């Protein structure tokens, strides 16, 4: 068949048009399958959670079984503390390893770092919990927020490192050269030119890592452990929203189920707020070039 006859053939054209519509339909269907669970989770959580939400939920401690009311104030604060500790460990280590892999990636060590980062991102979070248990809980002889935060921090490292590396690689080489040609040292170039140019992408990566860490339950089970009392000392076991939700959801009490929904809603909302806040603080009027 010559090229001309292919173009003219009405039969072939019809077949191609059908194929085209089939493929487009498949794409749209796949898109829906992606969106539906998210929307469903969001609405269902809001619907079930918001009705149990009241001021007490944010200000009160959990009540003993049988007593109505109570809240998750300790778990909300606990989650914030755990994420902060996790961030303090995970973000600098992640960003710096990302910089190392991307900017100084010409030796054996950085290849090893890159390889290990990739593997670390595939380690189940409960294993990371066990690791934190081994290196912090056992020597300290007790569960603590520190161990929980440490586990979350380790969990954040690969995500942050990977995205930092990818974003830095997107920065054109010509900008590095422009800076160096002005007599700016290598580390200042990396910090003030390369990192700044990639900052919006890196912030997105950090937020993603925070959001993931905020929702993690498994690594906290035997590190932070949970606590029904008020506790802000990072040396001690501390409540966390996902833990509290988990405990309440598997309980046989309707009241606790309602509170678990409220907790889930607050957790989603919290992540959302952190997202907005960080974006607002780190906004740059010239960013978005990448």
């Amino acid at each position: 068949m010559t090229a001309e006859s292919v173009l003219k053939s009405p039969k072939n054209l019809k077949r191609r048009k059908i194929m085209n519509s089939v493929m487009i339909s498949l794409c749209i269907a796949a898109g829906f399958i992606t969106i539906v669970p998210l929307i469903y989770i969001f609405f269902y959580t809001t619907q079930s959670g918001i009705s149990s939400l009241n001021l007490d939920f944010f200000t009160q401690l959990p009540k003993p079984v049988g007593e109505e009311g109570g809240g998750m104030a300790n778990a909300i604060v606990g989650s914030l503390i755990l994420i902060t500790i996790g961030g303090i460990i995970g973000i600098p280590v992640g960003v710096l390893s990302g910089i190392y892999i991307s900017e100084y990636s010409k030796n054996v060590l950085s290849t090893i770092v890159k390889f290990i980062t990739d593997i670390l991102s595939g380690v189940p979070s409960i294993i990371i919990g066990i690791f934190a248990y081994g290196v912090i809980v056992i020597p300290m002889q007790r569960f603590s927020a520190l161990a929980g935060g440490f586990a979350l921090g380790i969990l954040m490292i690969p995500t942050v490192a990977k995205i930092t590396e990818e974003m830095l690689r997107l920065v054109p080489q010509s900008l590095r050269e422009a800076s160096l040609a002005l007599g700016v040292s290598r580390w200042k170039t990396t910090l003030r030119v390369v990192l700044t140019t990639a900052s919006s992408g890196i912030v997105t990566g950090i937020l993603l890592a925070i959001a993931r860490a905020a929702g993690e339950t498994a690594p906290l089970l035997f590190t932070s452990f949970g606590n029904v009392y008020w506790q802000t000392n990072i040396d001690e076991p501390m409540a966390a929203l996902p833990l509290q939700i988990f405990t309440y959801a598997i309980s046989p009490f309707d009241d606790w189920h309602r509170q678990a929904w409220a907790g889930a809603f607050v957790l989603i909302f919290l992540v959302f707020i952190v997202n907005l806040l960080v974006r607002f603080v780190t906004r740059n009027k010239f960013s978005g070039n990448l």
Partner: protein
Amino acid sequence: MTEETEEIEDKEEIEISEESDKESKIAIQTIDLSVYFDERKGIENINMKVRKNRVTAIIGPSGCGKSTFLRSLNLMHDMTPKARVFGEIFIHGENITNYNSVDMRKKVGMVFQKPNPFPTMSVYDNVIAGLKLNGMTKKSILDEIVEKNLKHSGLWEEVKDRLKSPAVSLSGGQQQRLCIARTISVNPEIILMDEPTSALDPISTSKIEELIFNLKSDYTIVIVTHNMQQAARVSDQTAFFYLGNLIEFSKTRRMFTNPKEKLTEEYVTGKFG
């Protein structure tokens, strides 16, 4: 090409007498400069003397080592792990191995092929980027430097009302002049230009060429160009590179009217390239 040569004959200012040539100082001298990328030859045994306060053009077909030579002059090959540099480079008589690369690059600025202003910075911040990144923060001084250098690079009138807007909002030609302003604001002695107009339209190109001519009194300029007419228009001396070797290096006028080498003649008359 005959038109071109006639034009050059007319330009009396390009003509430099032998005497003044001898008197003018050497800004850059290379001795047996070679650069290899892995085993591949970039340039080999380049011996060249670039005169102070002159514009030196480097011409040659693609891949002949023009940019490689230029980039070795401010140690840019340090950034390329595979590159190996041999031979010696003297800047104003001083061997560059005596400087650390950061200080050396303050003396030898560079303008790149594609305009590359810092996208996260404003026009204002771009001009003083080199100073600011090195810790200079005094606003009154910086204001002055911005105005002076933007005027020097002929951009002031066009951007004085939007110093705070993003540098990337300027046109390509304006961005390139901004990059030149950025380069001269750190007060270099030598400016290397790597095909600075190849991404620009003819009007922007002529503005840049005019600027190069004006900068000559304060700086030594080495310009790599694909465009032979440009070399003829802006430069005092021209070096012809071919396959990593320096074929001929002489006064621009002689180079385009009466080259010594057959290869040069064939190239400048457009027989290959």
